[in-house]
């Protein structure tokens, strides 16, 4: 839909492969504040992340994380409040358990569980948020691109 603009490529040095795409589900009670702080402090961040604010980390459906991967998004972050700091009476405990299990599934099918970043109570301060994000991009760059998943699904792969 609508026009398309090519972008993101300048985000990093020439010759480097295109930066991984990242979606961040940010709890509006902490990580979103961290993100906002990073902006206020004008911390320069990699281009290719998009923040989706949510009421609570526990609201994030695993399905939407999986769907993100299926769209070719290479990293998904779920950032919530620290244990005991959830505004919704330990709702984030449930998120932790659930996402931990989701990582197991991703790992099973060879999607590095590092692609799902779950972090609780660590993104509230602007420098924390920026740090987490930069490290995440760093880690993702270290992984084989996710679209190999689709590419792997050709017969030549059978030979390995």
């Amino acid at each position, binding site marked *: *839909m*609508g*026009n*398309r*603009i*090519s*972008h*993101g*490529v*300048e*985000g990093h040095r020439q010759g480097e492969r295109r930066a991984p*795409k990242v*979606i961040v589900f940010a709890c*509006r*009670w902490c990580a979103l*504040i961290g*993100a*906002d702080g*990073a*902006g*206020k402090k*004008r*911390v*320069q*961040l990699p*281009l*290719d992340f*998009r*923040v*989706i604010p*949510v*009421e*609570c980390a*526990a*609201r*994030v*459906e*695993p*399905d*939407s994380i999986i*769907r*993100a991967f299926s*769209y070719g*998004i290479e990293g998904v972050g779920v950032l919530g409040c620290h244990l*005991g*700091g*959830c*505004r*919704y*009476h*330990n*709702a984030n405990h*449930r*998120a932790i358990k*659930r996402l931990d299990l989701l990582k197991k599934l991703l790992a099973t099918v060879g999607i590095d569980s590092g692609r799902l970043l779950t972090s609780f109570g660590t993104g509230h301060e602007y420098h924390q948020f920026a740090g987490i994000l930069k490290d995440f991009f760093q880690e993702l760059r270290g992984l084989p691109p996710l679209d190999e998943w689709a590419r792997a699904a050709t017969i030549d792969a059978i030979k390995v």
Partner: protein
Amino acid sequence: MASKRKAICILCRCYGEISDVIDLDSLKDMLTDHPSVSSVEILDCLCLEAVEGLSEKIRQSGTGKALIAACSPIARGDSILRGLEQRGLNPADLELVDIREGCAWIHKDYSKGATGKAWDLINMGLASLVRREGSEDATTLVRHEVMVVGAGPAGLAAAASLGQLGIKVHLVERSKRPGGMLNLISRVAPDETSPGEKLAPYLKEVEENAGITYYPLARIASAEGTVGNFAIRLQVDGTEHMIHAGAVIIATGAQALLPQGLYRYKELEGVLSAIELERHLKAGPVKARRIVFIQCVAARDQARPYCAAICCPVSLKNAMGLRKGNPEAEVYILHRDIICPGSTLEQYYRRTMAEGIRFIRFEEQNPPVIEGTDHVQAVRVYDAATGIMRELDADMVVLSTPLSARRDTHGLARMLGLTRDHLGFFEVQPLMHPVETTVPGIFICGSARWPVLAGRAITQGEAAAMKAFCLVSGQEIAALGLSQFRGEKFAIARVDREACTGCGNCVHICPYEACTLEPVNGASKSRVDPMHCTGCGTCVAVCPNGSIQLPEQDAQVIGEMLMQSFS
């Protein structure tokens, strides 16, 4: 189904803060032929616009839906939205996209990339805006009555202060006399006033205020209803009473532990528990010459890994009490650490030392040993400070045990939908909500929540009273207003009865017990109680087929946002 009306887009230059990085004009061009955009406007600085003008603009745009691409909510965004709401625009029709903190400022050097990102962010915003619905609010009439459970210091204080404010109060007490724990003790730490004087003003209020009804020897048979209108059935020795309340204050207190099986308790004469000592002191001077207190009995250990935080002040107080009765008395306090937080308690601690009370620190791994055949004779303790084994002659040993949660409150918890922690104490809303439970309209104070000294219990009682007062003094309560949190919220989860399979995931995961299953011709379907729902969305994530949703941000919205996230 969400209406797919078009929206007006308002882009803010922020005096160049945004437009120097993001090419707003090309964004405008692209947005103009966007399927869900009616018109586009670029403003120099949104926050200097008169909100009236802005709201007019949005009304005139016809659709009433507006997407505002400007700074973050925390900067000025939120206040602008609030302003528009106050001028009658539906919050569900407004979407704020942060392209300053969220884009321009963090990608200064990549103008082209930032513009692209802004395009995506705006698309994500539109996706959510055109689909979004608002929760329909639910309101309920409020009864200007409050039920206070427990007539200990906390309960009495709560009842009294509500009474003074002219609120009808039902004060429910399981025993005969009001006073609770204070009925069992000699004096109140740290000020050593007698329980009587401590409670006098509140008891007076309770007796004299016509608005306060006291129900002694009462049991709660059943409790129904939600905030604004609870209906409680009472058993007051034999006879049944039906009472109604707009709010409930839990002040059921805690209970003392007996050190059964520890330190030869009940085996040797002269070994007694703190609470027994209180009884003796209450009766009059205690004839003992060498008294040894042992602290942290059955506390800060495997079974009870917490510090009740009041045993130390209590022992100090009792030590002083014994001294009063018999100035010759030698009093030792064997402790693992003396916990006396705050200036008042620290002062008190120093006073007792000055008075000659002796303190010996022992270690958890080698606790004191009681000696004696049928009556206690001495206590052997390894002094952790000096490293020498000491033998203290003793004719009385006081085992100071912590308060622990009442074991008879689980029924009450179940009836009211309250949650208790693994130690059995009632849980409160974390952080800035010290006297609010997870159930709207039910407040808590005193040791039912966590062991406190009488003084603290009274303060909490008054605090809870104030909270309850704010709730019941109004005419009605709106569900949306119940959110105890600042800012707007995703209001109330909504169930699609057609699709709901009745699996009960939402019922079991909801931190607020807002979901219940109810039979709908043969099948069971989930139902959300708007008065309990806080809109956290935990249920949404576990609903197998998305039949429970947050109208303000349903699965469709998230899905669309993902689709738009990287054009």
